[in-house]
């Protein structure tokens, strides 16, 4: 996959971004109060979705921006994460055993790790097979595996098939009232903060450096004694786990899972978020998710043909603004007085 050269991306986060991240966290923590004070309570649920999609997009960006692997099937892991929560809840409410072995659960402390592990297991199998190819074939084989899972879940009538699975109540966390949307928001915010902190460490770790090196020049890394396949596989599994975490949160937030979560256009949406935010940057995907969802919400409230506008914006970003919205913000920021470097 040496043909993927993302020259603008893949910097390690420095100290100033840390301060900015903390500032953003403070704003996000105050958001529900601000939203209801300003009379936009719907803002909280929009930002919850942004945080969740941000986690999924950042996971994809980990192998795409840092690892140089274009996965066109990441919605599969997103959907798997969601279905783990959905299926465990169904078994819990029916008091049945999954496959006659595993009891159900409605405890988030159980379902989230389970979703992450199951998504990771699927990513291990899919990654182990897909990574034997490269380039266009890698894009297509990841798409193929996602399609297989999509059709599998469409055909599983026991879990709702086409119609999906309704989760009557959000998973419980001890001591918290999870029926309150604000509490769910804070849970998502906390998990997102932990996730991004972990991701930042991972990117700066020796492992992250090797992955970055493999993207930039595989032959040199091989000459240094690195086995590319193993590193890429671990990265793919971690990325799948992140997407699974996001899917599990989404299932809890929407209280609904359906095969649409793994439709190939969902994989496309995740790629769009990464591109919009800027490939190979830590918080780019979060900004991209925000840009995408805000754009979608605004355009959809304005016209039912919102995808026309979305297509135009996307086309413009791909053709003209290669660093995405983030690069646009940085460029605009540099124009502000007193911010020149």
């Amino acid at each position: 996959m040496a043909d993927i050269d993302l020259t603008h991306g893949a910097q390690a986060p420095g100290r100033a971004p840390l301060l900015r991240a903390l500032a953003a966290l403070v704003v996000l923590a105050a958001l529900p109060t601000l939203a209801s004070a300003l009379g936009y309570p719907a803002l909280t649920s929009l930002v919850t979705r942004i945080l969740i999609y941000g986690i999924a997009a950042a996971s994809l960006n980990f192998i795409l921006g840092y690892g140089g692997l274009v996965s066109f099937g990441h919605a599969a892991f997103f959907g798997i994460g969601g279905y783990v929560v959905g299926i465990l809840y169904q078994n819990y409410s029916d008091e049945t055993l999954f496959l006659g072995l595993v009891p159900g659960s409605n405890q988030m402390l159980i379902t989230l790790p389970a979703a992450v592990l199951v998504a990771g297991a699927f990513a291990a199998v899919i990654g182990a097979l897909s990574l034997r190819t490269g380039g266009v074939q890698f894009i297509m084989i990841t798409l193929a595996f996602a399609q297989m899972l999509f059709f599998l879940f469409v055909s599983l009538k026991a879990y709702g098939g086409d119609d999906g699975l309704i989760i009557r109540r959000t998973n419980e966390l001890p001591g918290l009232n999870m029926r309150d949307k604000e509490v769910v928001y804070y849970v998502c915010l906390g998990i997102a903060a932990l996730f991004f902190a972990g991701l930042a460490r991972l990117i700066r770790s020796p492992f992250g450096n090797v992955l970055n090196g493999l993207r930039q020049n595989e032959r040199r890394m091989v000459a240094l004694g690195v086995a590319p396949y193993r590193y890429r596989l671990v990265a793919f599994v971690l990325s799948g786990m992140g997407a699974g975490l996001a899917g599990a949160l989404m299932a809890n937030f929407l209280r609904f899972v359906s095969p649409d979560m793994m439709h190939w256009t969902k994989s496309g949406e995740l790629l769009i978020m990464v591109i919009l935010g800027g490939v190979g940057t830590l918080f780019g995907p979060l900004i991209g998710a925000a840009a995408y969802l805000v754009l979608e919400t605004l355009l959809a409230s304005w016209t039912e043909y919102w995808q026309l506008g979305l297509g135009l914006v996307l086309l413009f970003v791909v053709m003209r603004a290669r660093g995405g919205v983030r690069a646009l913000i940085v460029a605009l920021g540099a124009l502000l007085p007193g911010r020149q470097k």
Partner: protein
Amino acid sequence: MTLLLEQLLNGLQFGVMLFLLAAGLTLIFGIMGVINLAHGSLYMVGAYAGTWVAAQTGSFWLGIPAALGAAALTGVAIEALVVRRLYARDHLDQVLATFAILLMANQLVTLIFGRQPLYTAMPEALSGSVELLPGLFYPPYRLAIIAVGLLVALGLWALINRTRIGMLVRAGSTNREMVRALGVDIRLLYTVVFGLGALLAGLAGFISGPVMAVQVGMGEQILLSTFVVVVIGGVGSIRGAFVASLALGVIDTCLRAYLPGLLRQVMAGPEADALGIGISSMGIYLLMAIVLLVKPKGLFAGNG
């Protein structure tokens, strides 16, 4: 036995439809290195333009030039305005830009023609059914589709192996840079190939009208199957696309026809049907995964 033959013919008909799309896609892939997600949109444009003209004039045959013209023009416009700037970019940019075109094409078609599916009347001469073998009745229109597909395959073979353009196409898919270095106007060649691919996609879209409904989203359904064909056949190989489309057409059709019945032997009716349909939809993707694991570049890669 007659049922099996009928399914095989259905499979063959689906296969040649796939081939009409895959031929263009594999050339665009192989020669320009572009992943074109908007190929399904060209199929849709051809279907809508042809069906509309056929409905307005009352003549099926006038729909054919309309479909070909509309799809080819749209294709050339997309190439000149967008795709041309993406040749040097990585696959990710190409995927996203053509994905954007796909979104816009769907919305534009919805704006112009509405959400209701259109239906094309079959031409008089090809309606009804003919008895191919004793007891085997088959619609002549579907036979005509198969014939058209095979003729196009023959024509493409002749074009690629017997003409100057074909020589350049073969050379281009082997070594792009060398062709350019020899003084060939590669941009013109790219536009011609893209236009030709669009033309074939438009043809496929229009002739599928009387068999399947003409509706928004028809392009995506067949696009993914077409990608499977292209990847299994080997990117850039027309021969691979031909073999893979016929094989996939037959396999997919037979799975859909027989798997639910087989599953019904071991489980309850509606569940067996749902699972059967699901697994048969997975079939072609499973096949692609297996082929790629054995031959990571596809079956006929590098044969031109």
